[in-house]
């Protein structure tokens, strides 16, 4: 069993804004291994994962492309679409078959410009996602599992 988008989204956006956003969503699917976007490309779309896993990766010259993070059900894929210069900071690949809601970034940005309250809520939502991912990245920097001792009393 996996948590549904409808369960997850209330934590992200108020219902009226969530429904408004979902009205412009398009249901899409990606086969395993398909690229959603490439690092350095124009960020003209974003996605919310319904099923499956998306791997974010980074190009390292002369080395295999390392996976930085994986995103799953209910996760937002892509935030570069909201901030100039609208350029993807990482690449993304479907690690498994993926079903997602796809959004046209230009259309959503125009909706944000037209309705300040909607725009504020979208900004807060993406900000919370970014904050969460920044905290996760910091936790990985300090090596969350690195201070374990004998495996003793725990």
């Amino acid at each position, binding site marked *: 069993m996996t948590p549904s988008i409808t369960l997850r989204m209330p934590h992200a956006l108020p219902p009226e804004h969530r429904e408004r956003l979902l009205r412009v969503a398009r249901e899409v699917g990606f086969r395993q291994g398909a690229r959603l976007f490439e690092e350095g490309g124009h960020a003209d779309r974003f996605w919310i994962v319904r099923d499956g896993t998306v791997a974010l990766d980074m190009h390292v010259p002369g080395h295999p492309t390392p996976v930085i993070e994986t995103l799953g059900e209910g996760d937002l894929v892509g935030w570069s679409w909201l901030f100039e210069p609208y350029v993807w900071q990482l690449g993304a690949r479907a690690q498994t078959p993926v079903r997602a809601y796809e959004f046209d970034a230009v259309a959503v940005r125009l909706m944000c410009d037209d309705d300040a309250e909607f725009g504020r809520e979208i900004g807060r939502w993406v900000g919370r996602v970014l904050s969460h991912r920044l905290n996760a990245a910091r936790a990985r920097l*300090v090596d969350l*599992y*690195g201070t374990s001792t004998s495996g003793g009393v725990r």
Partner: protein
Amino acid sequence: MTAVPVPYLVVDRRRETEESVTLRLEPVAEALDDFAPGQFAMVHCFGRGEIPLSVSSVQTTGGLAHTIRNVGAVSDGLCAARVGDLLGLRGPYGTSWELDRARGRDVLVVAGGIGLAPLRPLILSALAEPEAYGRVSVLVGARTPGDLIAREEIESWPTAYTRVMVDWPDKEWRGDVGVVTQLLGRAPFDPAGTWAFVCGPEPMIRATARELADRGVPKERIRVSLERNMRCATGHCGHCQLGPLLVCRDGPVAGWDVAEPLLSVREL
């Protein structure tokens, strides 16, 4: 309970990772009292000393299992033990996970690295009575795929949701990448009606418990396992003191409502 180590025979030895093994033990004569998941034994390696180890398996025969990571002289001796070797055990000591308090509720298990070992009997107990609990979810995090224990067994558990996440994947890894706290947003549980059981290094426990509390799980229902330097295991020597707690007696398992303020104090 006895203060004198009771002889146990190593009847099986399984390598879990490059630096950890699981030993299955059977009593030579009389067995110690039954252990509850979360409790620990003082395990004596003859000629080296003894260390506290939580049980990673409890059998009806009086046998039990410990998963040990090789990080010091005693754990090195235990990891080197072979089938047929004798060890000394005393116990059971400390508090248990108290899984029974979660009856009728969702059960969320979050483990970091070898911290899965003390949670394993709790998971098996919950899965053995599927009608007694709500959704059982298991989230496992580790630094690398090589640090994961019980990998095949994890996949066989009939939970509502099981995910394994590593910080640093290798070339073969096809699973999730990130920190285990990122899985909390994906697991199916009702925060207000959930009991969470968390075990791993303390930084991982803190990060996980804080996020669970932020998501609405009552702090007293977030059960964490603490680790301190234990010697006597009977609450007399004070080596394991953590503020007002003697972890060997008042722990190792405690509610986050009790543990959080103690783990927030610098140099405590």
